[in-house]
């Protein structure tokens, strides 16, 4: 295990940011800390980096008890949401910073910086200042800077949070490929479930200072431990007395047994997807049911707004009471 966290707690005044966190992060994996804003995931990451001190508990990095170590002795690479670029230094100088602090020989620094800039596709920008780069380029520079010190763990705090949607998606794919190349133990914080599901090997869901569930993306999506994980990892709706994902509902235009009867009150077409809103006839079920179908499925049903339909969970679909 690369990072071993035991009984970590942290308060800010009366606010409990983290409560009794136990977590093991395996070597060489890409782990996501996922959860809503203010849930404590960034605080946990900062405690691992030493930028924040835990009130209680211990942090072990690569078998060394790091709880009392200052950040500069932990050998972690940290990437900030807002890049934290050294504004007065060129891109190359930024990347070289950690190596210069370690007093490595000049030719070694030069070679390493060139190699890293190649890796993050910034070679032609080596002599620019950070202010002359786009957000995505700055974040790649920050990543190269963190990797330069060959950290035992790489920590990323909402690394793509400040970027626009398209760049974010590109960088996300790129981070995954980079990790496959470099294999450094990586922990990143995100509140975007799609990002976590797409990029990471394992996900730790954190909410209100506690860990809700730890598992692979498939585990969490298909076998959520509780209602919170179910609803945080994807869309969810109420069918009868159960929670279910809208794409796990089968729609029938003819009456079938053990199904919820309702009338289609809204029909929205979004690209390849059709979203239905069905109002159950049974007054006990107050909430309207959301159903999502592919365009082909929807047109095959031969129904439209105002039609009566019968809904039931698909075979093998996940439901929670």
């Amino acid at each position: 295990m690369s990072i071993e966290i035991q009984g970590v707690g942290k308060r800010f005044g009366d606010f409990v940011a983290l409560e009794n966190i136990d977590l093991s992060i395996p070597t060489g994996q890409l782990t996501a800390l996922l959860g809503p804003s203010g849930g404590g995931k960034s605080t946990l990451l900062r405690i691992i980096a030493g930028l924040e001190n835990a009130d209680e508990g211990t942090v072990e990095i690569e078998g060394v008890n790091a709880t009392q170590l200052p950040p500069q002795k932990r050998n972690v690479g940290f990437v900030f949401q807002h890049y934290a670029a050294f504004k007065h230094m060129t891109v190359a100088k930024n990347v070289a910073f950690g190596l210069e602090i370690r007093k490595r020989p000049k030719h070694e620094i030069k070679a390493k910086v060139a190699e890293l800039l190649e890796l993050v596709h910034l070679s032609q920008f080596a002599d620019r200042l950070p202010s002359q780069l786009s957000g995505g380029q700055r974040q790649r520079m920050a990543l190269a800077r963190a990797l330069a010190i060959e950290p035992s763990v790489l920590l990323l705090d909402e690394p793509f949070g400040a970027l626009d949607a398209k760049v974010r998606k590109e960088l996300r794919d790129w981070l995954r490929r980079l990790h496959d190349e470099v294999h450094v133990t990586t922990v990143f914080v995100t509140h975007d479930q799609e990002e976590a599901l797409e990029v990471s090997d394992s996900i730790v869901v954190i909410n209100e200072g506690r860990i809700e569930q730890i598992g692979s993306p498939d585990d969490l999506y298909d076998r959520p431990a509780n209602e919170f994980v179910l609803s945080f990892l994807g869309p969810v709706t109420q069918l009868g007395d159960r929670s279910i994902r809208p794409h796990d509902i089968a729609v029938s235009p003819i009456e079938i047994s053990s199904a919820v009867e309702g009338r289609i009150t809204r029909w929205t077409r979004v690209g390849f997807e059709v979203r239905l809103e069905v109002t159950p006839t049974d007054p006990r079920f107050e909430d309207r049911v959301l159903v999502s179908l592919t365009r082909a499925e929807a047109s095959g049903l031969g129904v439209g707004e105002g039609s009566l339909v019968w809904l039931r969970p698909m075979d093998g679909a996940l439901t929670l009471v």
Partner: protein
Amino acid sequence: MIDTIVAPPEPSAPTRQRRARKGPVTYLVRLLVVAYLFLLVAWPVSLVVTHTFENGLDALRTLFEDPDIVHAMRLTVVAAVVATVINTVFGVSVSLLLVRTEFPGKRVLSALLDLPLAISPIVVGLALVLVYGGRGGWFGPTLESWGLQIIFSTPGIILATAFVALPLVIREVVPVLGEVGIEQEQAAQSLGANGWQTFWRITLPGIRWAIVYGVVLTLARSLGEFGAVKVVSGNILGETRTATLAVEESYLNFNQEGAYAIAFLLASVSVACIIVVSILRARAAGH
């Protein structure tokens, strides 16, 4: 067709014009401001220049031939430079303390730092005499028994100058330090830099322009200090008389030409300082 041609091309055009149009009020306000600045600042200062050069360069030449005046100017420069160095080191440390740390009494300290701007310099001078005076001061007699005379000597002049110019560096550095934030410093730490390395390589370059403004302003203020210095220096000819005191002395002794010449030198240094600051500001804004 004719109607369409006559009609205004865009509905938004009139609004744009109205916003850009300058009414008579605008011109009146401008005139007032220019007249005010001219009567209060530009005209009096320019008269100092014309008086200095009434007889060509004679006034300045006499000035530099008088050893006492040269000594006074040298003393002013030494006191101003030393006071500026002290205030810069102190100012940067206090700014770091105010922005980066939390401690009880922080607001009181912050308010206290503005006091030198609010108190009359002559009060500063008297207060320093009370503490450091050779006879009856709190520390004065003790320090004097160690052979260190403060009042009526150069250390006193430096002390008084440093006091009146105290907040200038701090007030320039504090907002910039707050704006720069701590993320760059944290990044440096995570990359292995210790406190001292972080300060030299990251914090200091981030606030360097603010420090430069602060230093230039402090220098300008220090060169021109009069009241506090007058009290603590004793105004001894050839020893503790500074340039500003020499201006007063010459003026009172009906040596108006000499007074204007020294005043001209002092004013030109201040103007040079202001020009340097505005150039630096423009350059920093361009970054």
